[in-house]
Every structure is written in C-alpha cells, then in structure tokens.
C-alpha cells in the first residue's frame, strides 16, 4: 500500500493535460485550487496506514492474499459491504467533503460481475483481462476514476441518433492491437487526482448503439486525454491570502470534464466491446454500488451538525428549546441516512462471480433519501447559524490594522469565545451549504450516482407489489381464484 506522501509523489510523475480558466495547468499537484482535492484523496491513503483505522480502510485481496487498500478491493462478504458503508462515513467526517475515490471502487466491483457474466454468455475472456488489471491496481494501490456520464446532447435521441455522434463515448476504429475511442465524460469526480480512468457506458444500449457499448481502462495521462476543471462556488477564495474564508482549510472535492480525442486502448484493457445486451447490467450494478457509497454524506452531516451545535453555543442560543429540537432533527435525518447505508450492505448477496452485491432496492431507497435529507440538514444549519454567515466581511477586513478592531468588536458573540472562532465556524457552515463543499454535500447528493428519478424507477422495478397486495387481500378476507 502507498502512503499519502507516496501517493502525492506518484501524481507528480503523471503528465496530465489539465486546463482551468482557459490555461494549461503546468503543476497540477501544487495548484491552490486543485490541491485541497488531492489532499482529500490522500486521506484515503493516510487513514489506511493508521492502526486505528486499518480494520475499515484495508482488506485482504481475494486474488493475491495481500493486504490492500479497501478502495481497490472486490467485496467478498457481507462484512466487506458493511465496512464499505462505514468507511464512507469515516472519510466523510474526516475530510468534510467528497474524497473522490469511491467511484473507482464501485467501477471495479461492477466490472468484476459484468465481465464474468459476459464471458459466461459469449465465451469471451473479459474477466481474465479484468482480474489481471485488478492485480495491477491493487499492487500499485492506484486511484481509479470511474467515468460513466456522457454529455448526452439531445436527451430525446438515442446515441446513434445524435447530430454529433461523439456526444456519447464510442469506438471509432478497430485495430489488431486495440481500439481507438472518442467522446467525453462530464463532471468526473477526482479525475485529475487519479492514476487510471475506467470508462463505462452511461445508459442501456441497443443493437444500433453497439459502438457505444464499450468499457475500458486507460492511464490518466494517456495521449489524447484532456481535462477541464469544473468551477465551484467561491473557488477562487483558495487563491486569497489567509485561510478563514475557505471554510474547510484542508480539504475539498473537484470535478472535471474528461475529453477522449481519438485515444488508443489496447485489447487487454477492454472489458466490454459491443456486447450491448450487458450495458444495462453494468450501469445498474455500478449505480447500485455507487448509491450505497453516499454513506459519505452521513460523515459530512456529522461535521455540519457539529458546526451547527458549536455556532449555537458561540452565539449563546444552545439552550433554546427550538435550537435543541433542530439539532435533534438534523441528527434524526443523518442517522436515517446511515440506516439505509448499513441496510443495503447487510442485505447484500453473493453473485455468480463471487462478488458480493448490495441490495439494490435498499441502495436506491438510501440514495433517494440522500437527494433530500442533506438539503434539510443544510437548511437547519443555516437557520441556526443566522444570516451573518453570508454578510460577514472578508478575513482581510478582520486582519486590517484600520478596521480590524471593529470587526473583532462587532462580530463578537459570547464574551468568552474569540471572535475568530465564531467567524471560522460560520465560514465552515457557508462552505458546506453554499460554498465549494456544497457541490459535494448538496448538488452531488441530488444528482451523483443518478438523479432522483433514476432511483424512483429502480424502486418501482424492485418492489414486489403483488406480494403486498396478497397480504392485504388475505387479511380482509378476499379469496381470488
């Protein structure tokens, strides 16, 4: 396993083609806007190397028998699935943001099942290729970016019907030694902090879309890949002097547009090639795992609840009954999320490939809750924090030799609490509810791993309504032929 320091050094050896604000980023690792996101991924290495977290953060590889980072593990038991949910809460609480590495873990696990099932039907050797690739990822302890979401263009049209055929990633050339791919993947979490990019289809493909039914892995600095960093609210505060106005002074999440401009993929890294009838399965299995992964938001909720309670104390209102009740409500919502994350893992099962898979109904119910509860928790945090959170002057005003004394005087809460503590806590709440971290805590909770309607469709498919009707009819005496 790599240490956090070794991970950072490994990124320095990559030659990524990254753009931000219209310019190429020459030093990705040290860029002040990108670096907090790298540090959040590095936390997945840091905690795995600590004895007080190794039980959750590490696992034993089923292919090599070696100790590995859980983010590269293929789940071999219900206990593995439960530990994955717990790991999400742990890292969410530790970083207060998206730590970006779960998407690769979910991709690896979905591919372990889908490649096996394709081989069973068609006699192909995708699973063998995949296992060799997995060994490489586990041995090197790599970060994989799981790339699913295509730009999609006109949503009413199938991929092959689009005016521009590149709006879904597709194969444009087949060679003896591999394939050439073109297209893009949007809002790719942690892409510029990854060693590998693993591409999957974004929707169920049909025969006429089979050029789009492909899955493959590439080194993140492969020739022809370009990254364009996504903007976040308040992102340029990271360029300012001081650290208070950043809210979270250590960590942050980050997304990018990933463009594949005729990129060559050798056959040994192709895991699905035009088997369109398995594209839906891969999407569904990845999505269900990834919906479980939103256990991370429970950890972020822990941080936000802690911040809300603390600012209530700093403001001297923590004993008010309505404040206490709001804190109770925040905890109720947060722990309800945790119930779903644990339940979908505990009710998982073994697939023919040997991989353990979450209960898809419960994973979708969990994620559906995640599309709602963090918004209510954030609303209550803002309610408790008060409007000061969005009207506070900047850190430079607090540091000003001219007006700093007034900042300190008029922004004081309780007399025994330094004004700076109060400001720092308000900035953290701002960061999580409408600043850079709100990308992860709120909008990602809404749309990540599929928008709310995607879960509702899955819930309607998974629920056994007929059985529920039978129960009702029996109890009221309806006997049907």
């Amino acid at each position, binding site marked *: 396993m790599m240490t956090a320091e070794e991970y950072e050094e490994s990124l320095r050896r990559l030659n990524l083609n990254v753009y931000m604000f219209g310019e190429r980023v020459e030093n990705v690792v040290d860029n002040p806007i990108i670096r907090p996101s790298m540090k959040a991924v590095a936390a997945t290495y840091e905690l795995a190397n600590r004895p*007080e977290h190794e039980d959750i953060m590490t696992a034993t590889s089923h292919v090599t028998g070696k100790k590995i980072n859980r983010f590269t593990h293929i789940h071999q038991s219900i206990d593995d699935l439960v530990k994955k949910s717990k*790991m999400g809460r742990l890292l969410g609480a530790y970083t207060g943001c998206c730590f970006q590495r779960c998407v690769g873990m979910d991709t690896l696990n979905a591919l372990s099942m889908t490649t096996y099932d394709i081989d069973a039907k068609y006699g192909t050797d995708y699973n063998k290729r995949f296992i060799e690739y997995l060994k490489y990822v586990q041995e090197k302890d790599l970060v994989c970016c799981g790339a699913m979401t295509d730009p999609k263009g006109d949503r009413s049209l199938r991929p092959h019907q689009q005016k521009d055929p590149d709006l879904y990633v597709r194969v444009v050339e087949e060679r003896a030694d591999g394939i050439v791919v073109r297209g893009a993947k949007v809002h790719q979490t942690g892409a510029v902090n990854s060693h590998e990019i693993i591409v999957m289809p974004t929707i169920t493909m049909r025969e006429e879309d089979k050029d789009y039914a492909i899955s493959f892995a590439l080194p993140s600095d492969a020739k022809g890949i370009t990254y364009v960093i996504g903007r976040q609210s308040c992102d340029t505060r990271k360029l300012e002097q001081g650290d208070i106005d950043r809210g979270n002074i250590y960590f942050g999440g980050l997304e990018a547009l990933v463009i594949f401009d005729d990129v060559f993929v050798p056959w040994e890294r192709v895991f699905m090639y035009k088997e369109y009838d398995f594209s839906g399965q891969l999407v569904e299995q990845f999505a269900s795992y990834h919906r479980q992964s939103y256990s991370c938001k429970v950890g972020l909720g822990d941080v936000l609840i802690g911040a809300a309670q603390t600012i209530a104390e700093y403001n001297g209102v923590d004993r008010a009954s309505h404040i206490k009740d709001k804190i109770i409500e925040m905890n109720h919502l947060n722990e309800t999320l945790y119930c779903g994350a644990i339940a979908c893992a505990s009710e998982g099962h073994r697939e023919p490939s040997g991989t353990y898979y979450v209960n898809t109904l419960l994973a979708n119910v969990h994620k559906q809750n995640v599309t709602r509860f963090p918004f209510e928790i954030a609303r209550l945090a803002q309610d408790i924090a008060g409007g000061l959170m969005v009207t506070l002057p900047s850190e430079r005003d607090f540091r000003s030799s001219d007006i700093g004394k007034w900042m300190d005087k008029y922004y004081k809460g309780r007399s025994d609490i330094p004004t700076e503590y109060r400001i720092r806590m308000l900035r953290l709440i701002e960061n999580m509810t409408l600043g850079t971290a709100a990308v992860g805590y709120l909008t990602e909770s809404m749309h990540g791993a599929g928008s709310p309607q995607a879960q509702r469709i899955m819930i309607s498919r998974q629920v056994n309504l007929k059985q529920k009707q039978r129960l009702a009819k029996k109890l009221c005496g309806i006997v049907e032929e």
Partner: protein
Amino acid sequence: MGKVKVGLKYCGGCNPDYDRVKAVEYIKEQLGDAIELVPAQTEDTDMVLVVEGCEVCCVDLAPFSSRPVIIVKSEEDAQSFVREIKARYEH
C-alpha cells in the same frame, strides 16, 4: 513482576463514541514502563488489548483466541484497564 507485553488492536473507528487514540495515550502515560504495547499480530504477547469505538465491538477476535483478550470500549474501560495492570504490577 516484569513488564507486561500487550498486543494492541483497534476497531476501524467508523463513528467512535470517544477518542480511542487518546485513550491509548492515557494508558501509555499511566502505565509507563509497566507495559510494552506492540501490534496485536505479534504472537508472544501476554494479552491483547482490543480498543473498540462503540458497543458494537466489531473486531474479529478469532485471531487472538490463544491469548487473554481485554476489551476497552469507553474512557472508563481504559481507566479500569490501567487500574488492573497497576494492581498486577504492584504484586
């Protein structure tokens, strides 16, 4: 009595009720030279100290079946452990 060799094992710490690392620091501070803390996988320890973050106590104890196991799942348990070792050391 000689130094007590103790194998240390933490749970994963997903959502602990107290600071487990601080509790172990307290034990080290209180017991000083009376104990030697080593990783739990070290076979020849006098006992294994399992530091759990909550009542779930999720650590798999099977690998430690040949040795006495003491479970700490709160700050109070850490204090009890210190008292027990001190009593043993004094005798």
